[in-house]
Structure formats: C-alpha cells, structure tokens
C-alpha cells in the first residue's frame, strides 16, 4: 500500500496515536480525562512493543501500568474532586519558564537519540528474544545480578512506603 509495508503502516498509525494521546494528556482541562488519555497512550506503547516482537513486555506493560498504576491514579484523582473552577491559575512568567525548561528537556532527549545507531546494540539470540521463555532465560542467567539489585530496590521502596503510610511508628 503506497510503497509501505503493513508494519510501517502500523508503526505510523501507532506513533501518531501515542503522540496525539500524549498531547491530550497535557491539554485536557479535566484531570480524569487526562488520566484516561494517559491510559490510551500506554495502550499505544504496548502496541509498539508488540511490533518489536516483545509480547511479554507488551502484556506486562498493560497489566502493570494500565491495569494497576493508572487505576490508583484515577482512584486518587476521583477522591480529590478537582474541578475546573478551583484550578489554580499560574502567572505567564511561570508558564514561559516551564515551557523553556520542557523544551530544553526535549532537546536533550532528541540529542541523546542522535548517534545511538552507532552504539551497536548487543543482539541477544534471535528476533524471538521477546518471548517469555527467552526473556526469562536471559534475565536469570546473564543479567541475574542487576535483576536482583532492581528487585531489592523495589522491596526497599515498598517497605519505605509502608513506613510513611503508618500513623504511629513505635
């Protein structure tokens, strides 16, 4: 179709949708709508993972981000009852500074991507690395140490959040 393969079409459509939903997160006035647009963005990103042959990552992305974390976001925002009337209006100077700072972050991110193709990313196995079996084997053999470190980090964060949440610490 028009000289492009189906994969390229899918990539184009998914990229357009994820950027559009990402912009809608920022531009929508209602915080609940923002959260729902963010959920849609996560679905589009999961689609990108599927295109990269990483089914496990795609499904876990949906289960963890869309299914658990964003539900908690929605939960908190619904409880806080944010309305458009009591939304604080920022001064134009702050808006300008925020715009410039955000633009510079974008500049840094785009700059870091330039030249990444010369890094020569390591190829692990075949194109089937994204399946559960291959990913598990690589994670628990070659990358066991960083994997365990990451899990200890998560455990520490878990214990820390429980401590903060406690009312009376003995």
């Amino acid at each position, binding site marked *: 179709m028009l000289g492009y393969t189906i994969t390229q079409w899918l990539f184009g459509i998914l990229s357009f949708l994820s950027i559009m939903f990402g912009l809608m997160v920022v531009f929508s006035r209602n915080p609940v709508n923002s959260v729902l647009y963010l959920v849609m963005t996560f679905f589009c990103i999961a689609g990108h993972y599927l295109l990269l042959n990483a089914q496990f990552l795609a499904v876990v992305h949906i289960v963890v981000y869309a299914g658990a974390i964003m539900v908690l976001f929605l939960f908190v925002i619904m409880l806080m009852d944010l309305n458009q009337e009591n939304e604080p209006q920022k001064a134009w100077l702050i808006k300008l500074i925020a715009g410039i700072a955000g633009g510079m972050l974008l500049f840094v991110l785009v700059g870091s991507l330039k030249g990444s193709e010369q890094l020569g990313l390591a190829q692990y196995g075949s194109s089937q690395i994204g399946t*559960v079996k291959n990913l598990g084997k690589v994670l628990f053999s070659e990358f066991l140490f960083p994997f365990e470190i990451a899990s200890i980090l998560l455990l520490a964060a878990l214990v820390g959040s429980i401590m903060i949440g406690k009312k009376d610490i003995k």
Partner: protein
Amino acid sequence: MLTFIISKLIICVVVFAISLAVAAYSTWWERKLSALLQDRVGPDRAGPFGLLQPLADGGKMFFKEEIIPNVSNKFLFILGPGLVMVTALMTGAVIPWAKDAYIGGALYSMQITDINIGVLYLFGVVSIGVYGIMIGGWASNNKYALLGAIRASSQMISYEIAMGIAVIALIITSGGTLSLREIVEQQDAGFANVVWQPLGFIIFFVCALAETNRAPFDLPECEAELVGGYHTEYSSMKLGLFLFAEYINMFISSAVMAAFYFGGYNFPFAHELYDAMGLADGSKWIALIGFGAYFTKIFIFISVFMWIRWTLPRFRYDQLMNLGWRYLLPLSLLNLGITVVVEFFRGNLHF
C-alpha cells in the same frame, strides 16, 4: 487463508453467542436455584418452567425509560457499561473449548486463538475490566456511585495479587507454560491440577468471587449502604449491561477454573471411553464429548457461585481487605513455596 479466516470468524461468533446465551440462562438458573434454596417456586409464568424469563427480562430492560443525569459527563457515562461488556467478552478468546477435530478433512482448532501468553492475556483483560466500573461510577456524579466505584477498584486490585501468585504456582505445576491449551493438555495424562494444587485452587476460587463482585464480596453494589453502588444512576439497558457483564464474568471465570484446575475438556477414563466407542484421535465426536464434559464442569462451578451467594451474608469492608491482604496473600506465597519444593521432588523443575 480464506478458509482460515472464515473458520475463525465462525468460532468467534459461536463463542460470542455461547457467552451471551449462558449468561442469559444463568440469570434464570440463579432465580430458580435461589427459589429452591428458599423453598419457593421461582419464575414460572413465561414459558414452561419460566424458561422464557431471560427474554422477558431483556425486553423489559430495552423498553424502560433511559435517563442520563444532567450533571454527568455524558460520553464517559455511556462508555462505562460498554467497556465492562467488552472486557467481559474479550476473555473468552483464549479458552480452549474442545480438542482439535477433523471436519470435512481439515483439522480445526476449537479455540479462537492459542497465544503463548494466554494466562497473561487473561490477567491483562481482567485488570482493565475495572475501568468500566470506575468510569461509570465517576461519570454518574453521585456520591454513592463514586463510593461503589472506589470500592470495586480497590477490591479488584487487592485480590488480583493473591490470584496472580496462585496462578504462578499453577504454572510451575503444569511445566512452565502460559498457554491455556497446553495447561489443559498436560492434564490429559495423570491427575488434574487440583490434586497438586488444592490450596491454590481455594485461593483462586475466593479471588474469582471477589473479582467478579459476587456475594459475599459484592460490596461495590452493597444496597444496604450505597443504594445501588456504582450503577445507582443507570437505567434501561445500560444497567442491563452492567448486570449482564457480571454473569458473563462468572461464566468465564468458571471456564478458567475448570481449565486450570479440573482438566478442562478432559475427564477421568476418557481414553478408555473413546477406545470402547472406537473413536480415533481428531474425531468430531471426541471434541463434542469433551465439550460436554467441559460444560458440565462450568455448570457445576456456576451453581456453586450461586449457592454461595444465597447462603453467605456479605462481608464488612475492613473484613474484605483483611482477608485479601493478611490471609490470602501470605497463604498464596506459602502455596508457592510448597509447590516449588513438591515439584522439585517430582522432578518437574528444569534448570
């Protein structure tokens, strides 16, 4: 290619129709069973034994006045019940309904799709299923609906964890596969998984009750405190979709439990029976008998769901959270530890 697409389309439509039909007749069976338990007659006016009652109920739902609250977010208000229904129907896609069979010389799979991450797909769909209830409850702009929605989401997130760990133990028992077909197939020889996973099955069952918002965990629609819970403001068929989705969820979770723990379309002495009947592998009669065995198990599970609803009183909210976090989660971790040790000595762990 064309026959593949047509065969898949046919099986999609069949699974869709079966889900709706089973859900419709579950409402009838629920009313009949509750009547039996309470020594009443139950619905008996529409057709013989009240068999046309689900049609009458559906017709009534469609002809009721439809009210959308003025102050609500109209788009999200309509999206809510639709999302609940879509996610309820999506889960049927990975369930293997029967053995492969030759029909007209070609081998057909009795399953919409056998993806190698079927179990994860189920969890993904279940975890986004809560959005429908949350969006619907919030968009109603009613405090009871909002409280119901918040209860539903916290309940589903809490019980998903214990359920996930119980399923990890099950996956270890069934040799580390995430495909539902392979989980069912490996129970063909030897025992059903429930023999190796009795505790895991109980945890999964309790969590399934909580995930489908069935009694004794139906706090999101607790009428004593919250009027109607998350669907307080809904009327007409939108309310019908919420109620109907609950029955589809019950049907699908019964099917998943039967496949995970009770061998799906396998049953004891199946091969002896097929040999006695002189049926070769891939015969459509084998598929049909297996389908019947699977549906018998599903029917028993649905009946147990209903039996529990009409027997047990509702939990208090703090009791629900205590049960989920302080009892089921540690129990599921214990079950996982025991499973690893048992499977190590059975020689099922590969390094």
